[in-house]
């Protein structure tokens, strides 16, 4: 491991009075990585982002950016730029002036910075919008301007605070692809905050799941999705069944809390399995149908891929689990 991590948190805490927004976080973000911080609101992910940008100072612990301790470095001297949740575009400046702002405050001459701003606007596919005001743009366009403005400084780390939250679904999906492609092309480390698990799973190289000011799990999307470490992670990422020890042992699993992906549950005629239940409800999801089954030990959800025959509510069904489908988790909540 010769490479210095882009961002490194060592037992970082940030308390606001009695509120422990961030409470002992250890994190390492590698250079060039697309890293997501995922969690519900109030879980500390945004505070962690603000600790990197410098708008918050840690109560305890240390933060390093490319090996340098930044405890005493104010935001304007950190070579880290942010795409804000509300975009925070300057309403009194044109789009081009907005993008060139970072160069202006560094004293780059007008001609150079305007040319650079136009390059950045071309990069985010808004080449002809330089003379407009932010107020004349749509949400998606503002988002691109905010991105161009943050990238013009060629930051070592780009921070994105729920940047797609305000966009509608179609636009959000298109932007996800574009952000990912842009990150690959520029090779800049992206740290991305989101509460949308599908966004984090589909975009990130690695992600950290936050809960109550702590990191519940760090790993690749596949690791976090398939082997959630805690019940919280299993509940927050995907739509797993979370089964208590008694239910697990009844299904032939370990005597522990386990997670069970609905797609790992296969429905068979009731006489083909020892595990049986009654179908309570069906929910059509497009690519499949989620079937809610009442079992003797409790409720269970199965995902039936589109095209396979579906039971009707009230039917008795048998269930068969895929090998190793029951994944044990730590006892904590």
């Amino acid at each position, binding site marked *: 491991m010769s490479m210095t991590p882009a961002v490194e948190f060592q037992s970082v805490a940030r308390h606001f009075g009695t509120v422990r927004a961030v409470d002992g976080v250890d994190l390492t973000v590698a250079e060039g990585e697309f890293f997501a911080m995922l969690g519900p609101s109030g879980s500390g992910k945004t505070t962690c982002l603000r600790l990197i*940008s*410098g*708008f918050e100072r840690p109560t305890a612990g240390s933060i390093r950016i490319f090996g340098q301790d930044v405890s005493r470095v*104010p*935001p*304007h*001297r950190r070579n*880290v*730029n*942010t795409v*804000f*949740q*509300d975009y*925070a*575009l*300057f*309403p*009194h400046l044109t789009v081009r002036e907005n993008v060139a*702002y*970072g160069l*202006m*405050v*560094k004293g780059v001459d007008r001609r150079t910075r305007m040319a650079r701003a136009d390059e950045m606007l071309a990069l985010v596919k808004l080449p002809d919008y330089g003379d407009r005001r932010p107020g004349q743009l749509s949400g998606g366009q503002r988002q691109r301007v905010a991105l161009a*403005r*943050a990238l013009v*400084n060629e930051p070592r780390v780009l921070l994105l605070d729920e940047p797609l939250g305000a966009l509608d679904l179609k636009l959000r999906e298109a932007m996800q692809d574009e952000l990912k492609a842009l990150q690959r092309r520029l090779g800049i480390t992206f740290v991305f905050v989101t509460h949308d698990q599908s966004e984090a799973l589909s975009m990130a190289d690695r992600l950290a799941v936050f809960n109550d000011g702590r990191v519940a799990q760090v790993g690749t999307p596949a690791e976090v999705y398939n082997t959630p470490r805690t019940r919280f992670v299993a509940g927050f990422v995907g739509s797993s069944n979370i089964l208590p020890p008694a239910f697990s042992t009844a299904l032939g699993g370990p005597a522990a809390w386990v997670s069970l992906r609905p797609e790992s549950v296969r429905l068979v005629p009731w006489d083909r399995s020892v595990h049986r239940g009654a179908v309570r409800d069906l929910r059509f999801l497009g690519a499949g149908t989620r079937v809610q089954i009442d079992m003797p030990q409790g409720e269970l959800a199965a995902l039936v891929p589109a095209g396979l025959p579906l039971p009707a509510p009230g039917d008795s069904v048998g269930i068969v689990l895929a090998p190793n489908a029951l994944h044990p988790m730590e006892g904590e909540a």
Partner: protein
Amino acid sequence: MTAAPTAAAAPAPAARAPAVLPDRGPGDRLSRTFWRRPGLLTALLIAPPLLWLGVVYLGSLAALLAQSFFSIDPFSGLTVREFTLATYAELLKPANLDIILRTVTMAAAVTAGCALIGFPVAYFAARYARGRWKALFYLGILLPLWSSYLVKVYAWKLILAKEGIVSWAVEGIGASAILNAVLALPVIGGNSLSTSYLGTWIVFVYVWLPYMILPMQAALERVPVSLLEASADLGATRWQTFRTVVLPLAMPGVAAGSIFTFSLTLGDYIIPQIVGTSARFIGLMVYQLQGTAGNIPLAAAFAVVPIVIMLVYLWLAKRRGAFDAL
């Protein structure tokens, strides 16, 4: 029994609420009329103030302006109701130009003073004051406006007088030399603070300060914190952020506030009478010309001056982009 709903389970059609609710009297009918003609209510609401503004307010202003194009007969002292620009020409006499220049300079100085003193207060209130502190801020700003203007001005005369609180306090801390040096300054100095331009300025600034702080605070309150953070994030120092983000976005408020302080100073005729050098200002001239001198046309011409100055001022402010962020 099947699970299908039976007639007994569903409410009988008669028991269901009607799709259209019954008429509830004249108020209801009036509401319906307004709903069918959305313009009617607006017209009814706006007509009285429009009449007031158009006829009483602008009408009297027009009458005043018309007066300024008349002249006064030097022998009889009666107004000659014939169009002439002679009254305006009279404004250009050195003595009258002096008055205009003095008033405009004072108004500009008062505006600058209010802006400089008011900005930190407004900034603090907009950025940091919350809850009880914010209430205290409004109380502190508005409280002076609730007491009589005359009382405040006379109080200031006493405060600034030769034997007043200021000179007493200055003497107490052993800084009399500084006060005397300030009073010895040409033009703005004088015998005492209460008989100098400096004193007039202090009282003007005090009296009009709330009119500057409140719009500035409103403008600053509308600047989201994320803009300041974005600026710092992009590498700006505090000073750069202030100059390139805060100030431009506060400009509409500063402009609005300065319109108040500037025009209020231009028109005031009481403060220069009570505190200061007894040199005359536009307001005082208007007061004296329409009263004791009975020269309504010249008074009207003088009254036109602040209006013209304000129009030019607004036009300049607009050209400088003071309202761009609105």
